[in-house]
């Protein structure tokens, strides 16, 4: 069998420990600190993005294979559209445009 993986899944375990760490830090910042709400949202939002990046690269093998650029460009574009949809919708509805 070619391309045997090493006997111990070290990168998976590192990824798992990191993912647990991001979650625990988000919990502590959200529930145990008295920072302003906006600061907390930016910190836990940033941790969610880190978590997503970790899953994409370490577990979903986004960088792997001959088609890696196609996968990366397509996925990044989808994430961009998701950000536009979410931020755009909330902005349009909360910025006072709905009065008119």
């Amino acid at each position, binding site marked *: 069998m070619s391309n045997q993986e090493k006997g111990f899944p070290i990168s998976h*375990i590192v990824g798992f420990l990191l993912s*647990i760490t991001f979650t625990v830090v988000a919990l502590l910042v*959200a*529930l145990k600190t008295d920072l302003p709400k906006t600061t907390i949202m930016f910190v836990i939002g940033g941790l*969610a993005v880190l978590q*997503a990046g970790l*899953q994409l690269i370490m577990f979903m093998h986004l960088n792997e294979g001959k088609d890696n650029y196609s996968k990366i460009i397509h996925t990044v574009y*989808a994430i961009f559209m*998701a950000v536009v949809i*979410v931020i755009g919708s909330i902005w349009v509805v909360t910025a006072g445009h709905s009065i008119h």
Partner: protein
Amino acid sequence: MEGKINTSAPIEYQSEQSKLNILGFWVFLAAEIILFATLFSVFGVLKDRTAGGPAGSEIFEIKDVIIQTLLLLTSSFTAGIVIFEMRRGNRRGLIIWLVITLLFGLGFLSMEINEFMHYYHEGATMQTSAFLSSLFVLLGTHGAHVTLGTGWAILIIIQLLTKGINPTTAGKMHIWSLYWHFLDVIWIFIFTFVYLAGVL
């Protein structure tokens, strides 16, 4: 696309069809990102429209949410081990880790069903307010995906038992693992922007 098969590549890339299927599944995942983006934007717009019903901070049980998050994070890790064992050609290890992954997934699902029943008994139903409608649609769509993923994995286990690990079944397993990790990513955003933001 080159016609030659690279035998040093992982097994799921050793069939041209499986390679294309994996790329195609990433295209599907992009559409799923947009699906969940629309549900998150509906929730983001309607989260304060409680219409006299309970707000998130009154009904969310943050301890249960933490357990759900740990179950799904762990199942994402064990799904990573599934692919690791598959690439080593270890069918027995693959199936054992896949069953463990599904047990974590079923644990998550049973907690989510309990959570919905708890909300129902608190008088928080889909009809109560725009906030709860958007909450149930977002959580329900995610939960339905996890349910589908569980059934899908069982079908792949049957194929692995009858056909073994070959480039075709390995491609299917790889695609399923992408789906499962993707659901974990969506859950992290639900955990952060629905539950944590809701109880701040």
